[in-house]
């Protein structure tokens, strides 16, 4: 007997994504303009138009542990071209946030990079490139990749050794406190 993969639609997930993203997800009529214009599809496990349908079907786990939501580079081509004015790139943000909260992240290095970036802002009010990269490298234990490029950057004076700290950094730090779920 042929086996069938049965999906029981779960509208709770659609409602959760819709409320977080404020996007009219159900307007999607699968024209695939998003997927056809997306430059990252070669690195994705679920195509952008499939993401739209899977949100509607409530396929929460498949989406939140997908690579797609993390390799999306936020280039906004999909959002620019969607005939129904759905901000698909912003939906990817919402899915990444939900994935982070679920603790099941398919591309942990990408998440750690953005966490290191925000930690730098939280600390100094501005990004301190050297500190941010050091934090990222330590958190991923990916210490030796890009050594040649880094040395070349030092040689060319493209990397500053001291952070640029702003006076209003306490105000900036408080912005991080106002959040649903904090970044470290």
């Amino acid at each position, binding site marked *: 007997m042929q086996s069938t993969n049965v999906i029981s639609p779960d509208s709770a997930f659609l409602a959760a994504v819709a409320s977080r993203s404020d996007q009219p997800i159900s307007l999607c009529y699968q024209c695939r303009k998003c997927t056809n214009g997306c*430059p*990252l599809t070669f690195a994705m496990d679920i195509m952008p138009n499939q993401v739209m349908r899977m949100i509607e079907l409530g396929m929460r786990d498949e989406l939140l542990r997908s690579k797609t939501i993390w*390799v999306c580079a936020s280039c906004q081509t999909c959002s620019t071209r969607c005939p129904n004015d759905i901000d698909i790139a912003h939906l990817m943000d919402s899915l*990444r946030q939900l994935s982070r909260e679920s603790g099941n992240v398919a591309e942990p290095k990408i998440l750690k990079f953005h966490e290191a970036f925000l930690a730098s802002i939280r600390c100094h009010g501005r*990004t301190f490139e050297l500190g941010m990269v050091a934090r990222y490298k330590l958190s991923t234990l990916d210490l030796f990749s890009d050594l040649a490029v880094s040395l070349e950057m030092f040689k060319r004076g*493209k990397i500053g050794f001291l952070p640029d700290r702003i006076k209003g950094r306490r105000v900036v730090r408080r912005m991080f406190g106002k959040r649903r779920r904090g970044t470290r």
Partner: protein
Amino acid sequence: MKVSYYPGCSLHGMAVEYDESIRSVCNAIDVDLVELADWNCCGASSAHFIDDELAVRLPARNMLIAEREGRELLVPCPGCFQGLKHADKELKKAPSRWTDESYEGRAPVSHVSEFFHRRELLEKIIQEVTKPLTGVAAVAYHGCASQRPPKLTDAESPENPITMEELLRAIGIEVRPWSYKTDCCGASLTLTRLDIIHKLSGDLFDAAVEAGAECMVTDCPMCQSNLDTRQTEIEALRGTPYGLPVFYITELLAMALGEEKPDRWWKKHFVDPVPLFRNKDLM
């Protein structure tokens, strides 16, 4: 003409030559830049990954400072530009959600190419050119965030911008047509998924060479850094010697407007632009 200036973190770090060349161009055409007081990072490509609120609050603080200063705000980095435009729109929509201050939007946000392309400034540039860069063939590479999404950026022609192209023609450069001017180079993944960079940026190099370009010109510090620093390894992977210098539009504008010491910028480039200039008798 006096404008507020938000350099952003990159221009105080890796992209210092972008900052210096913007100042040089402004100096040559009498634009007075006033750096925004105590500006903070806009959150760039990271804040919206993790927290939508933070992605507004960080740039909103800068927009409130700009509002108090009450002048147009020039923003060279497309990532910052997009974030600040987003905050400007959210502040206009519901100011009380973000601040106790009043907000009318007295500091319109402009990005570099669109700013210098404005009629009176473009005319001034044409007037002040002392050293046209004749004979150099280039492709203009706009990338993503200065154009998309048009709802935020207010870009006039997000699929086919022409601002940088017209600026380059004004200083004597031959602009080669190509269809990759707003394709993504992948820069935000440069530390995390190098394989993706190699594909996206490699395709851009192939297309630039096919278009007959001898160099690429951009107005984005992430794109410049990515295309410049990753080019050698992509050459090795694809077995193609591209040798394409990647310029900031303002480096070339400044050079054409008579900047005396552009050499200090060329030393910052991984792909050395000096042979190209020598070849064209521009050095």
